[in-house]
């Protein structure tokens, strides 16, 4: 094999290695984002549940708005999780 072709193979291998390394890093970041998204959905469920408990403990006219905000927060968390899944 000529030196030029050997050099080309080495460079190609380096490029492939860099690409595979970058791909692996992005894959790892994606996995972390998915896990974080899942935990955030769990947190959203807890917030919604506790808002309902708080609303039963102290009843004021503004609480339906707060509970609605909690539900909205949960839906946004679900949307973020789905977004991370299809990243």
């Amino acid at each position, binding site marked *: 094999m000529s030196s030029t072709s050997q050099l080309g193979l080495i460079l190609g291998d380096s490029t492939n290695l860099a690409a595979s390394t970058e791909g692996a890093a*992005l894959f790892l*970041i*994606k996995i972390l*984002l998915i896990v*974080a*998204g899942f935990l*955030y959905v769990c*947190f959203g469920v*807890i*917030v919604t549940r*506790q*808002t309902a*408990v*708080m609303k*039963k*403990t*102290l*009843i*004021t*006219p*503004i609480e339906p708005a*707060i509970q609605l*905000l*909690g539900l909205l*927060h949960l839906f*946004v*968390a679900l949307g*973020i999780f789905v*977004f*991370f899944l299809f*990243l």
Partner: protein
Amino acid sequence: MPDIFDASQKHPSQGSVSDTTGTTAVDTATEPETSAEVARRPRRHVDEYSEVLRQETATSGNSFQAWLPKPHKVFFDTQMSDEHVLLLLRRHPITQVPWILSAIGLALLPFLVAAVFPVIQFLPVRYIMAALIGWYALVFSFGFESFLMWFFNVYIITDERIIDVDFNSLIYKNISTAKLDNIEDITSTTGGAIRSIFDFGTIKIQTAAANAELEFEDVPHPAKVTSVLNELLLEEEREKLEGRVN
């Protein structure tokens, strides 16, 4: 010569006596009230016995205030049918400034990081967008949770009890209740420049109940709260003396 009064005879104008001046005095002597009649007497309105709350106008329950005298449409889950909420307190809004500033700082942090450490710019655009969305979702969660902690951690004074509602975290709730009869001692503490300027402090209430001490932390107008509690204690004593205990 004037007639000699004879008590054994029933006078025609029973209950009224005419004197020589022509005026008529009405004899208002009546039978004393029985204890049942006294007990049936309606409870006095708070404005009748509390000078502090008499000067306060009733507030809407929609308010985000920390001092809510005579709030409309505010109830709690263990409230009795004839019990009225006289005062709803929260921690003074100035105590929430640290987390508000923290949330603002966290919101601005990505821009600082991008300017100082441009490492993230090597990521694909959608990953940068995902990271930003995730970051601001966390910041919003932090702010929302802090707001819920402030809004629902309340101190309630009714005409029967004092209630301390504590949500120490989203999954831990503690409600302490003490009847006004069981209050032994009230201590109000206002220390420091910030507390003096914004007029908020901590009130410690010693009780004879199972919960020896209730603490109203960083509530506005601690002197007024103490006065209201003292007036309520006096009214409770008065109710006991008059036999109007419910």
